[in-house]
């Protein structure tokens, strides 16, 4: 069988779902961030696949490249914040952070 666009999309969709699930379920901030990474990469797969099958150009791939970079940056910032939080709360569990609840 030859691999076509649908397969890529399916993989992407599955990745996205997994990522979303991780985000919902994980209590640890790091875990949540990993979920986010999954979701971003799901999109990346889509982009690359589409650029190959639909547009027949490299725009999508460029996009993907940028996304990867951004994901890294985002992760950096996020981890810094998680670190700060760990310093302040002594844990990296997101649901500790409920001080602002009124």
């Amino acid at each position: 069988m030859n691999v076509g666009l649908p397969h890529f999309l399916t993989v992407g969709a599955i990745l996205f779902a997994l990522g979303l699930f991780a985000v919902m379920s994980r209590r640890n901030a790091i875990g949540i961030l990993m979920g986010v990474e999954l979701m971003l990469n799901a999109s990346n797969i889509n982009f690359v696949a589409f650029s190959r099958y639909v547009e027949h150009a490299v725009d999508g791939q460029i996009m993907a490249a940028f996304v990867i970079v951004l994901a890294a940056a985002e992760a950096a910032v996020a981890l810094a914040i998680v670190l700060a939080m760990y310093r302040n709360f002594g844990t990296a569990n997101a649901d500790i952070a409920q001080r602002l609840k009124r």
Partner: protein
Amino acid sequence: MSDNAILTSALIILGLPLLSYVLTFFFGKKLPRKGDFIGVTFMGAAWLLAIRIFLTFWKIADPSYRVEASFTWIDLGGFHLDAGVLVDGMTAVMLMVVTTVSFFVHLYSTGYMHGDRRYERFFAFLGFFTFSMLGIVLSNNLFFLYVFWELVGLSSYLLIGFFFHKHSAANANKKAFLTNRVGDYGFWLGILTFFTTCGTLNYFELFAHVHAGTIGGHLLAWAGVGLFMGCVGKSAQMPLHIWLPDAMEGPTPVSALIHAATMVAAGVYMVARLFPLFGPTALMVVLYVGSITAFVAATIAVVKTDFKRVLAFSTLSQLGYMVMSLGAGDSVNAMYHLTTHAMFKGLLFLTAGSVIHAVHSQEITDMGGLRRKMPITFWTFMAGTLALSGVPGFAGFYSKDGILGSALAFGMTDGHYIPFILGILAAVLTPFYMFRLTFRAFFGKPADQERFDHAHESPWNMTVPLIVLGFLSIASSGFKTADEGWFSRFAAPYDLPAVAAQFDLSTPPAVHGLVVAHHRAAPDISAVAEHETGGHETGGHEAAVEHGEGHGEHAAHEAIHHKAHVRAMIMSILMVILGIGGAWWVYFLHKLDPASLQRRLKGVYTVLQGQYFFDEFYAATVYRFTLWWAAVCAGFDRYVIDGIVNGTGYLTRMMSWASGLFDRYVIDGMVNGVATVLQGAGEGFRRLQTGRIQTYLVYSSASVLVLILVYKVL
């Protein structure tokens, strides 16, 4: 006197008291003698002018002669209200009456009110009252009649409440004003009805309209009843009579001027003046109200021991007579009795004042034997009493007799005898209670020695008015009945055809002959009037002649009528003798102890002493209901209207599952209601806002899916 002269002097008469009011009210305190002389002199002048007008009309001797002038008061283009002056015989007489009594009361007050701390105010108010009363007399249309009507009410309010530091006075004047307002309500509606149907309020134009049938049937009847309500209020007829006895809280001169001679007569004057506007139905009401009042009041007067109150109830009953006479279709004798009554009742109150002044008490139980101490007062009082009792030769006799005659005639022609019977019974009671008063107060031994010793005759400025009025109360009748005597020069029954002729409306329908006809069919005053007054009136007679019809019935009715008058005269004379005799028997010879009588007729006595418990009745029903209802409205406003949104509030609360915070505010009003509800909603939503990130994410993603699904469906 030329027409213009008449009008001018009429206006001057109207203006003088007003001027006196303004001067005394604003500058009284600064003037010497607190400016009482202003009032007296001005009224004197007015009196002289009134005499002049009176004489002029005496010379003219034509009741249908009138001088009228009006100007546009409000003009909106398409709508206008006029103000105007009307002077005719009836006006002339009323002017005479009002100015005379007013002048002498002014004079009398300089003595009676001497040293009162609001002396100048008293004269100011007297002036104001006189002004408004004259306004009633002179106005030529209903609107301004109503205007002055109300002003009279105000001045009466002010004067009754002159000693307002007494609770009784404060209550009395409020009561008087409100009771009158009730009457005025009907009066005002009546006026509105006439204005909206006829488009005018000028008396004679209205007559013409009525005659032409612009307004008739039920409408006319109701309008008439409405107008009469005004009379019921002002002239203290049942069931609105309750205010008059209490009005005695005012200073005695006020009682004399306002609550005996003039203001209370305004109602009678009004009905007499507007006589043609009263349909048969209305007149029937008038007749019964009048006669009942006449009798009931008289019965109460018998048991009262307060000097002024006895007189007050006698006033009620006399007013009843006048109204009864109007109801019987005899406006002329009503006016005649009004005139004579003004004289002797004014006199009686002034003498009462003089007595109270001397004894410092109003209770006849504190009096006795005063005739030796104060002869002038006594003799003048006797004059008044005799006149009121209707002793032949005194003024009251002729007028009252005329009224009884008409009542009887009406009964004979129309079958309604009850009014006449009530009238006759009252005619027994009147001399009885008057002489009861006389014997208790002026004869016998003094009940209270030390009061008696202090008693003394009043100063000249109080006795002079007594003497003058005493003379008038004997002579004011001219010793003749209305239709034979001087009065016929001033007042004649209305001659509608003549009126109609002036305003070229549809030619008047044929004149019916009989009172019966009058009371059953459309009002045709001329016929009625002429028959009831013996028929040799200029106006009425010509009217009948020129629409020459039904001479046969005419004659027949005239006969009935004559018979009626003769019988009435005989009966009333008998009654007088009976009454005086009774009083003599009980209170002079003491053949019968009234106390024992009281004991024996306990029930009757209590009812009479309690004035038939009208006040209690009203207190239990009208007042209580009104206050209760007011409270209900206020509560409704506070709690229901102000909390009305709580219904919506409830829904919103359900919608936003807010906690019970809301209830606290339920009562507290629409705005709070909503506010709280919304706050409640906020509370609810805030639960969503748990600070947990995951929950946020769940909510958001969930709503994404929802969005997609929703829009898939849509």
